[in-house]
Every structure is written in structure tokens, then in C-alpha cells.
């Protein structure tokens, strides 16, 4: 009753104006290609320090990349995965890329290709090749079951068999030493799906060995990630696009010739949209406050 009496005289902002404001807030920085320095993300710094501590070339070991994201969370997860893969590729650590999300297969295939092309454009005298610097396993169904079997396998070449295109993994010379989970010195898992990370935390271990795990999450799942960061089960995390932007900034300091990537642009656009949402919430509360004051005491009860 009270809300009805108040709403008759209430100021109502048309939803279309709100939608328009958000669209403008997101598009202007992207179209103008203007980016601002990102906020410092300590969890992304932990990832950076961890990758820097890995031996150049991997010393016969590998990194596992789980690109468990699809088109819905591509905007945040893809830049995270790109900066992480870029850092590993620069250090020449061979990668094994896969996805547990059916819609993520395209991203799993194209992610290392895109990063390799970018690195070759920056350093034309160097090459990054499929089969030498990375292999892509494609989509692996049945989620947790796959991670369990993968972790316990004593011969990963036999268990995995082929890559996404049907090529035998045993045919790739650099990956012939891949035998078990013990051969992985880093795992990067990127997803916006709630509950996916739990499978890796729970099952990705073998005979007491737990490979260091790094997680890339969307902004909405940051709270879920912090419990694992705090317990040390994650070596570090990319907190949404802000984490990718700060990581990109750190890579730029280490490799000055590095080209600008999407992470900083998207982070800036998202920052503007955040400000618009905060402004809308503040306006809504101010309007509600003045309406409340204007409403007679009898109508308030």
C-alpha cells in the first residue's frame, strides 16, 4: 500500500534511457581506443611471479591450459587466457590446451594460434609452431570424470590418444615425454561457469603431487575464487578483466615492444560502465529519499 501511494508521484526513469547510457558507456572507450592504467591486482601479480619462477623452456615439463569458457564469458576469460598463454609462450614452455565446455572448443583451438601470430609479428626472427610449442586436445566431455581419469593416468599419450584434429600425440616429438600429471609444472584454468574450478581443486592431484593451479574467473565469481586463494590452493588468479589488464601492464614493463592488447581497452570500458551503474544507483536512492520525505506521514505507514 505504501509503495503504491508513493509510486503514483514517483520519478520514473525510462529503462531505455538506462540501456542507452550503459551502451554509450561501454562503446565510447572501445571506439576511441582509449585505455587507462589499470588498478593494481595482487592476485594477478602472484600469477606473474609464479610464471617468472618457472624454468625457461620448461625443462622437459609442460603447462596445461583449460579454456573452459564460451561466448558468454569470452570478453573476460579470453584476455586472461591470452596474457597467461603469451607469458608461457615467451618463456617457451610447451602447452597442452583443452576445454571441458563444448562451446569453448573454438577458443581452445584459436587461442594459442592467435598468441603465436602476435608473438611472431613482434619477433619475426622467432617461430612458435603447433606440435612444438603447443598442442590442442579440443573438447573433452564428461567434466569431472575426465579430470579424474586424466590425473590418475599413467600414460597420458595412450589415454589422450589424439589432438583435436585427429593427429596422434605420440607423433609430436616434443610431447613424447608427456606421461602423467607429474609432467605438468603449471595449470591455468579459465572459466565463468560456477563449480568448474571445484573439479580441478578436487581431482587434479596424483600420488601427493598437486600441480600449481592458476585460475581466471569472471567478476561475478571472484568471491568464490578468494577462498581458494586464501587457502593456497590457487597460486594466483585473474580477477575478471581487471586482472588481465594488470597482467598485461606487467608484461608491457617486461617486454616494452609488446603490442597493446584488448585487456586494457575492455577494462577501461567496463570501468566507465561501472561508474554509470554506480551513478544510477545513487540517483535512484536520492530520488527514493526525496519521495519518502515528500510522502505524508500517514501514507508512509
Amino acid at each position, binding site marked *: 500500500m505504501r509503495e503504491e501511494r508513493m509510486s503514483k508521484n514517483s520519478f520514473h526513469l525510462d529503462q531505455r534511457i538506462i*540501456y542507452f547510457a550503459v551502451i554509450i558507456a561501454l562503446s565510447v572507450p572501445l571506439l576511441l581506443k582509449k585505455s587507462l592504467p589499470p588498478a593494481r591486482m595482487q592476485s594477478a601479480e602472484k600469477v606473474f611471479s609464479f610464471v617468472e619462477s618457472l624454468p625457461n623452456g620448461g625443462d622437459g615439463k609442460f603447462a596445461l591450459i583449460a579454456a573452459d569458457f564460451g561466448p558468454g564469458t569470452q570478453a573476460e576469460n579470453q584476455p586472461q587466457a591470452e596474457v597467461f598463454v603469451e607469458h608461457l609462450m615467451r618463456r617457451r614452455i610447451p602447452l597442452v590446451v583443452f576445454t571441458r565446455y563444448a562451446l569453448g572448443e573454438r577458443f581452445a583451438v584459436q587461442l594459442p594460434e592467435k598468441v603465436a601470430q602476435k608473438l611472431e609479428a613482434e619477433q619475426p626472427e622467432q617461430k612458435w609452431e603447433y606440435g612444438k610449442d603447443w598442442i590442442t586436445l579440443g573438447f573433452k566431455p564428461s567434466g569431472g570424470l575426465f579430470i579424474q581419469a586424466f590425473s590418475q593416468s599413467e600414460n597420458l599419450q595412450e589415454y589422450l590418444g589424439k589432438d583435436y584434429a*585427429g593427429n596422434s600425440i605420440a607423433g609430436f616429438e616434443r610431447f613424447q615425454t608427456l606421461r602423467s600429471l607429474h609432467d605438468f609444472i603449471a595449470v591455468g584454468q579459465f572459466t565463468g561457469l560456477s563449480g568448474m574450478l571445484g573439479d580441478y581443486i578436487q581431482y587434479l592431484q596424483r600420488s601427493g603431487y598437486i600441480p600449481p593451479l592458476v585460475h581466471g574467473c569472471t567478476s561475478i565469481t571472484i*568471491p568464490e575464487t578468494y577462498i581458494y586463494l586464501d587457502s593456497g590452493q590457487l597460486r594466483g588468479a585473474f580477477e575478471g578483466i581487471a586482472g588481465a589488464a594488470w597482467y598485461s601492464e606487467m608484461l608491457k614493463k617486461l617486454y616494452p615492444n609488446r603490442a597493446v592488447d584488448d585487456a586494457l581497452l575492455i*577494462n577501461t570500458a567496463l570501468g566507465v560502465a561501472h561508474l554509470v551503474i554506480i551513478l544510477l544507483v545513487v540517483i535512484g536512492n536520492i530520488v527514493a529519499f526525496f519521495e519518502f520525505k515528500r510522502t505524508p506521514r500517514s501514507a508512509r505507514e
Partner: protein
Amino acid sequence: MSTFLGGLYFVFYFLTPQSALTSLGVQGAHEYITTGFILVGGAAIGIGIVNISQIHIRKIFRRQTGWSYSVALICGLITMLFLAISDWRYDLKSSGEIREWQTLSQFTDVIQKDFAAQKSDVPPLDVRLEALRSAMQKKSDEHRVSIREDSALQDAQSKILHYVEYPVTLDQLPAIKADISQYIQALQESLGTRKKSLLIAKLFSLLNNGLFIALGSAMFSLLGVYIASAAYRAFRIKSVESSVMMIAALIVMLGQIPFGLWIYEGLPAWRLWLLSWPNSAAFRAITLGALVAGLVLSIRMWLSIGDEGGKNV
């Protein structure tokens, strides 16, 4: 019963020490067992396709309400199935060609290792070298026509043809392996380039990457504007608790965007404290509760408790 037995295996597997599993032979079989479960999951996708087809084809034939949308769905399903299977078959054929050359490369390693180890239970060295030479000749002859227009592939193949003209010797094996690797690399690039020019690959890319993926991103991006509208309409400070939530939300939001630094440089640190301490404590409690509930639900499903249909099994 099947649910119970399936669950029983995993309970047994997780609770039994690994040494016991190895001695019982379960550890070695675990891969095959989980692959079996994965196959069952894959069968569920097939059942889903059959089910969708049944429902919508029935709708089309009976001209029920919305039957035109069912036509669109069935057409989309058939088109994508056809394109995806064609794409997969091309990849299968390509990988088959590459695998044969990889086998030859591995064969050079095996010959050298067996010779160095002086193994007696293998064919004589000259027989194996001749087998290698004739296999390389046969594979090269198969491709001679198809690679006529590919100069990079022809260059790589000419190096291999150099070896097939005369009997192969043991000291040539490392060089043969290196040239085969180069040929495989050139073949992969050539097959990849050829694939991109195929109509089926272009159609698949158009429908999958250009339409399906793009529509998926667009659909999720709508959530952003809905959230903004919902935040304006619903986020009201009406109590102490909502005030605390609002302040926390402001600190977390401003702490991770570039503009937060303009307001106060310490905001990222405040954000970090909020997420590391109060948030983690609360989230752990919520997660523990949810997991206990999940455990109870799993036990109910495993033992079919409360399942009326189970009584008749």
C-alpha cells in the same frame, strides 16, 4: 541398481588407498572404466538429439502451434550436423595421412635403438631399411599428383625422394627423420590451407563462428544492461544491513576499476581486505553448507531414497 553399482565403484575408488588399488588391479582399469562412463554421457547427447527430433517432427506433421519454428530448428540441426561431420571427416583423412608419415619417422628411431641394443628378435637391419625405403617411395608416389601445385610441399618431398633412389643406410636415418619432420610440417600447413578454401569449411565457419558464437555473446551481453536497470530500480538503502552492503559493493567496484585510483589510491587495498577476510569467511560457510546439502542429495540419488519408481525395480 545400476545407479547404486556405479556410485559404489567410485565410493570404493576414492576411499581405498592407492597401494591397495594398484595391488587389486583397479588402478590400471580405472581409465577404461571412466572412459566407459564418459561414453554413457556421450550417449545422452545422442538421446537428446533423438528426443528433440521426435518432438519437433511430430509437431511439424501435426501442424501444431509454432510448427514453423520446429522446421527452422530441424533444418538448423541437420545443416550443422552435416557440416560438422564433413569437417570432422576431412580432419580424419588429413590426420590419417600425417599419421602414416609420423609412423615412418618413429620407425627410423626404432631401427636405430634396436641396432644399438643389438636386439635379436627383430628382422635383419637390411630388411628393415628396405621396408623403410619402399614405404617412403609408396607414400611419396601417392602424393605426387596432389601436391603438384604446392611448391613448399614439393621441396620438402624432393628431399625424401633423394633417399628412395638408392638403398638406405643406417647413418642416413637421423637425416631421414629430420626431412620427414619437415615434410610433415609442410603437409600440415598445406592441408590447413586447403581446408580453408573448401566450401564446407567456409560454411561451417560462417554458421559456427559467425552466427552461433556471435549470437551467444550477444545474448549474454544483454545481461549487462538488465543488471544496470535492475540495480537502479531495486538497490535501495532502507536499513543498516543494506547500507553496509552498499558501501562494501562501492569499495569492491571502485577498487577494481581505473577510476577508483582517482578517488583514493588505497581503494584496491581495501577491496583486497574485504574479499580476503569477511567475504572468504562468509563464502566458506555458504560453500560448506551447499556441499553438505549436495552430499545428502548425492546419497539420496545413489541409494534411490525417495524414488517411487525404484520400488518396482
